[in-house]
């Protein structure tokens, strides 16, 4: 098994780990900062699937992470995952706050676009 495949399995394990907060911290620390697009993509998916305030904040309001990732593939995967959520309330609330209060204009614009997609999905 290749190292990347092992890391992917670690990310999946963290996505379903009982110690949710510690798992989110580790995914944020190592996953979202990985130079590998595939690792960042999987990390964003794992964080969105957790569907908690802390995990969604990481992928929605941080520059260069989640929906704001420089890689279109990573950003699109994160948006698709958000649209696939059954309970979108927490994500919409964070997006609304971001649109209102975030200092970065790029982040605000991205949040606005995703918010619109979620409204019509």
């Amino acid at each position, binding site marked *: 098994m290749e*190292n990347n495949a092992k*890391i992917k*399995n*670690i990310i*999946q394990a963290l996505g*379903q780990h009982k110690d949710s907060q510690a798992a989110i911290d580790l995914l944020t620390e*190592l996953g979202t900062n990985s130079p590998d697009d595939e690792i960042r993509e999987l990390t964003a998916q794992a964080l969105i699937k957790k569907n908690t305030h802390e995990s969604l904040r990481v992928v929605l309001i941080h520059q260069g992470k989640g929906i704001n990732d420089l890689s279109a593939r990573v950003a699109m995967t994160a948006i698709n995952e958000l649209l696939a959520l059954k309970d979108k309330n927490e994500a919409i609330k964070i997006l609304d706050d971001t649109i209102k209060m975030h200092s970065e204009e790029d982040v605000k614009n991205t949040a606005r676009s995703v918010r619109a997609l979620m409204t019509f999905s």
Partner: protein
Amino acid sequence: MQLGKISFGSTKVLQQNKQQNTINSNKLSTNPFGVSFKGNVIQADVFQSAKSAAENPGIMQRGKLFASAVVSGINSFNDAFKSRMNAVVSFGKKITTDVFDTIERIGNTEITFDMSGIANRLFPDRQYSVKNLSNKSVDELKSLWQGLAEIA
């Protein structure tokens, strides 16, 4: 009838001669043990003749020594055989005791197999399965991830 009487009388004479010869030959007997069976001493022709013994006294002496040596040899063989048999018997008893002890020990021993450990050794990638990783602590996962990232 007369012929029969004659023949009977001659037979009697022959028997008397035979008995006389036996007595004479008994006097010449060199049977060293003097063993007799039903009153009759064993005849000289069973053993070495008196004549030859008288001519070669050394041979008899050597024969006795040889017999003595044989007897003592048999005795020592018996002793050695007995001691060996004792060793064999004691070995058998020890084996039996050990077997019973082992059986008892096995009966009192709880045998456990660390199947996950064995499986991980046989299939090293198996420890990186999502199921196995989910049971690890976050700190363990962090060190695993960092280790893999360094190698990559």
